[in-house]
């Protein structure tokens, strides 16, 4: 799943993003997103962190949730808006150009679900800590955090293998976009550290991609 690094190339040309991702991940990401959004129920209030072109946002809205998607890339948001109108979901979805650093402006305990697909790996260490703290604040008691993202494998052998596979891709992507992704280290521990309880974790065979469900304790 190291191909996620190549998505940086696509992010630079948002119009090719969706098609490119399907090809690059052989539909793997779509299946992960389907599994993740199966936790969402009709009528829930959902926040999508780093919604990009709206992959998770649209899935949640189709399940009948009221979704707010946030992202810092205006071109990606334009594509998301187009898709929302096309799917006739404009009444259910709102997308905003804002980063996780602005989550402090959201109302406390106002979301049933906060989700993020390939968003946390884009954040700096400070941003990740801040974002997880804010997520706990804005989730309702017993609310869910749903994450699908690139993580750093824990076993040394897989870490090495992962590096070998990634290296040429990293160089290629660097040359085109001068950017790279940074797989998250110790994500489950960080989520627990923010006061959320892990409900389930699904790791890819290479241990470099995680699907994680966490819940805010009932007592808040």
């Amino acid at each position, binding site marked *: 799943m190291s191909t996620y690094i190549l998505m940086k190339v696509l992010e630079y*040309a948002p119009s090719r993003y969706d098609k490119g991702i399907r090809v690059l991940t052989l539909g793997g990401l779509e299946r992960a997103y389907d599994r993740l959004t199966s936790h969402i129920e009709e009528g829930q209030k959902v926040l999508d962190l780093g919604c990009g072109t709206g992959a998770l946002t649209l899935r949640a809205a189709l399940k009948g949730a009221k979704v707010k998607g946030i992202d*810092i890339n205006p071109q990606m948001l334009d594509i998301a808006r187009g898709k929302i109108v096309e799917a006739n979901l404009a009444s259910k979805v709102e997308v905003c150009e804002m980063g996780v*650093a602005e989550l402090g402006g959201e109302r406390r305990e106002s979301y049933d679900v906060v989700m993020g697909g390939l968003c946390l790996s884009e954040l*700096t260490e*400070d941003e990740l800590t801040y974002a997880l703290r804010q997520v706990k604040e804005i989730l309702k008691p017993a609310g869910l955090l749903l994450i699908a993202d690139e993580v750093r494998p824990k076993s040394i052998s897989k870490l090495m293998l992962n590096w070998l596979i990634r290296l040429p891709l990293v160089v290629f992507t660097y040359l085109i976009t*001068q*950017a790279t992704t940074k797989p998250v280290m110790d994500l489950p521990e960080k989520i627990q550290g923010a006061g959320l309880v892990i409900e389930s974790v699904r790791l890819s065979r290479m241990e470099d991609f995680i699907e994680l469900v966490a819940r805010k304790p009932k007592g808040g």
Partner: protein
Amino acid sequence: MNLLKFLVATIVETLLRVLPFPCKTGLVKIGNPDRNAPVLLTCNYHLTVERLRRALKGVDAYLLVANSRGINVWCASTGGLFTSHDVISVLKTSGIEGLVDHRDLILPQLAATGVESKIIGKKTGWKVIWGPVLAKDIPAFLQNKLEKTSQMRQTEFPPMQRIEMAVAWAFPISIILAPFMIPFWREAVFPFISLVWGLSFSIFLCFPLYSQWLSPEGRRVGFIFFDFGRGGFQLILWGAIILGLITYSMAVGDFRWGFILRWGFMSLIIVLLLSIDVMGSTPVLKSGLHGDRLLKIHLDERKCKGVGVCEQVCPRDCYEVDRDRHTARIPRARRCVKCGACMVQCPFDALYFQSPRGEILTPETVRRFKLNLVGKRLVKVEGRL
């Protein structure tokens, strides 16, 4: 020890100047800052942060390192990798708001192409003050009550930067091409590398001699690849090499056309490689590879209120502000490098770009579409020309 580390970093990162070198983002304490200490912000290109630390010796301040994906301030902000979001993020997540009593943020002037002061003010309450171009001017800028001299606002291309660019071109060319020569023509590897470095240094060190003839104007799309200028300095250099080769072979009494042709061809290739984007390798001219090079900056006098933000952010000193008549002028528009900083920052949207065919590029477009290798702004402008 620190000095040694700094030197190693300088050498490695200058050799690999084309690659990003990210360092840790967040809050850095400089000296012993108190609750009134100035707050400075920069990108997370490693060498930038190291140089800033050295330049700020003896100053008490907070330094915020924002995420520019390991790229320098000017490139990252113009290319859309260092934006208002990254600045807001480090303000909110670094804890700085609990450490100082004021809300004045000093940003590097060259970030003005991508970081919008208006958005930062609106979303965080921090007031943006545009600092000097170079880190070395910061202590004087702080002492001077945050006033910049016109020198502090301008990009120049001094000898040290020219050496850096010569190295930045010569090193990748030599390490990419030399390995291919080893199996076929081993004995030529050393002369080849010397030629690459010699030519690169000649081209960049002699820049002031021929820069007046370099100009993107009047060039046609399709022949945008080689920056020779009307003087054709690089070709003159090449001619000198050919002459040298002939003189050398006659002097050693072993004149062979094969030798002259081989090395003549080789040096021509190197000259062409090095000349692909001489203008874009300088901070004083617009790259010859960008469609934006043909744009012209214009001022809408009805909208201009003469507040002079343009003058504060222009790295080429194009502007003059008439404080009495409350209006700006662009008397030195010829020096413009089309960075777009003035358009992005003008609070009244009084500036716009115009293409040779008369199409208008609004401030909104320049704010939205950043300039990068596959960016929309480039495509759009090229498509229109």
